[in-house]
């Protein structure tokens, strides 16, 4: 493990910017988000779980799929520099692995190439992910339920721990190893500092609420499909879709054309299964016209369908939906209710 002094942080980021477009947690108006930074000074390492998740770096709220003119269709050119993301938390690095399953392939299909999403792949495949350990997780964090944790390294290239004086780096992936080998940081972390990481980890974990055993969640969700519990769960929901928009794993989108005459563009935009028109067909037929059906869909997608298709739950326990819900609908309570039903 190697380290830089906190006083060297800005220089480290500036060096990183030479070869990468650097994204990091910043204040964005009243919100916090991962944005491409101009200067290292913009970075705020105190921000824990950004209000908007970093999925928008790879899968922005709106993205032009192609532009068209009389001459034909063209995919907009994107900048050539690969992305480096500083300061992602474990709940977010794990979400990237899940989204890569959706956008990088598709379940159960033989001809995989046509199911790759080139917009996602181009950005994700070359990116470098710095996972910053959470020294003081929030009260809404429940990453431990999904076998994640404030010091878990899954999904990152380089794992970073912030101590009082230093940032300590550990390579996780080959990509991360190569980067650290080439980056000319020579100072090794001392044994004392490495021990300190263990201590920080224990403290961080003590912030989390007790781990819920969710091993029965998959089978239970299926069993209770037709039970009235869904009405109880959905009663609070106002179908605003905020949970889906802040969620690091929600990936549903709409495709829409904007243009007049022979010029225009086709755009994809975030969408949510919470909205009535999400599944409404032109004929008027709507398979999920009721709020209960839509809430059930969201919960089932997270804790049953994704497991069926990709072998894990589509949730990392980041708690963003818990924070943002205007009706105080707490997904942790929903999970507990389902398990105990």
């Amino acid at each position, binding site marked *: 493990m190697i380290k830089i002094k906190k006083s060297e942080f800005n220089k480290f980021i500036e060096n990183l910017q030479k070869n990468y477009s650097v994204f990091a947690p910043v204040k964005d108006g009243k919100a916090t988000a991962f944005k491409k930074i101009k200067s290292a000074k913009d970075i705020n390492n105190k921000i824990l779980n950004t209000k908007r998740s970093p999925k928008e770096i790879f899968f922005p709220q709106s993205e032009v*799929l*192609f532009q*068209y003119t009389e001459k034909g*269709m063209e*995919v907009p050119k994107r900048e050539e520099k690969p992305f480096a993301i500083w300061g992602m938390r474990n709940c977010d690095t794990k979400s990237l692995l899940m989204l890569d399953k*959706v*956008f990088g392939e*598709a*379940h*159960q*299909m033989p001809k995989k*190439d*046509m*199911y*790759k*999403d*080139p*917009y996602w*792949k181009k950005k994700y495949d070359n990116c470098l992910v710095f996972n910053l350990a959470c020294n003081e997780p929030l009260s809404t964090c429940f990453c431990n339920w999904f076998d994640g944790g404030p010091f878990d390294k899954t999904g990152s290239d380089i794992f970073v721990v912030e101590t009082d004086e230093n940032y300590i780096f550990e390579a996780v992936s080959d990509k991360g190893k190569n980067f650290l080998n080439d980056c000319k940081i020579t100072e090794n972390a001392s044994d004392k500092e490495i021990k300190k990481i263990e201590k920080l980890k224990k403290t961080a974990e003590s912030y989390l609420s007790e781990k819920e055993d969710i091993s029965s969640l998959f089978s239970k969700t299926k069993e209770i*499909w*037709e039970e009235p519990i869904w009405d109880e769960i959905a009663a609070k929901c106002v179908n605003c879709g905020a949970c889906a928009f802040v969620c690091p794993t929600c*990936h*549903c*989108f*709409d*495709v*829409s*054309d*904007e*243009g*007049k*005459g*022979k010029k*225009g563009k*086709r755009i*994809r935009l975030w*969408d949510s*299964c919470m909205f009535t028109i*999400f*599944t*409404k*067909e*032109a*004929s008027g*037929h709507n*398979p999920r016209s009721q709020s209960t*059906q839509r809430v059930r*869909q969201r919960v*089932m*997608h997270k804790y*049953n*369908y*994704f497991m*069926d*298709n990709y072998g894990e739950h589509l949730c990392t326990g980041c708690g963003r939906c818990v924070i943002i819900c205007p009706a105080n609908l707490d997904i942790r309570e929903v999970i507990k209710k389902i398990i105990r039903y």
Partner: protein
Amino acid sequence: MKNTYIPFQMKVKKIYTESPDRTLKTFDLSYVNKDDKFNFLPGQFCEFSILGKGESPFGIASSPTEEDILKFTVNRTGSVTNEIHYLQEGDIVGIRGPLGNWYPVEKFKGQDVVIIGGGFAFTTLRSLLVYMLGHRKDYGKITVVYGARNPDLFIYKDEIKEWEKRDDLTLHLTIDNPVKGWNKLTGFVPTVTKEVSLDPTSWCVVCGPPIMIKYTLPVLTEIGFPDEKIYTSLERRMKCGIGKCGRCNIGSKYVCIDGPVFSYEEIKKIPEAL
């Protein structure tokens, strides 16, 4: 890497108005670039788009045995289908496909097949029927039950006349309510299905409006068709067509990539399928 979101161009070669109220039109499209030509099987669908107006999924109504064209029949009902109905011969449209799975024509080989359809959902069933007639020797007895609300709302009327003349095909046409001059069957598809004495050792393919599918499948069970030999094609609102945008799912299955063709056996395992 192939970009499956980008449509290729096809030219509107011929337009047929299928119903006197002009709500149903069929479009024969020809390839602008021969390289875009793709192989497909009956039951698959495409995303049909008019740039600036949007994109919608439609089952391919032509058969792979019909060279160089793709056929789509479109009911005028929403904003995209409206625009499609405004198309003129010679216009250029965008196509993405073929998407989804297909009717198991390989399993049907050497076997009897029953096709049950309703209204303008006969599109992929036409593809299947024309395909099997094109490989007639590969298949056993072919029986078709086709229902529409009234005689005007059958699609492919000229072809139906040709099919009626064939002696290697049994065709049962039915309308919902009696109409003067109609000398074929009368009654809803599920009822007629029960009445025409189908052979339950056949394979069966059902496609129609959701309500028709829902009430026809149990009738087939009653007659004695095993669940794994009954196939149907489902529809859901779709955008991407490649299992990402998240709206066409029924349970953990996505109609766009796991379907649109499902066996009754599979459907019974998914609570919200019908």
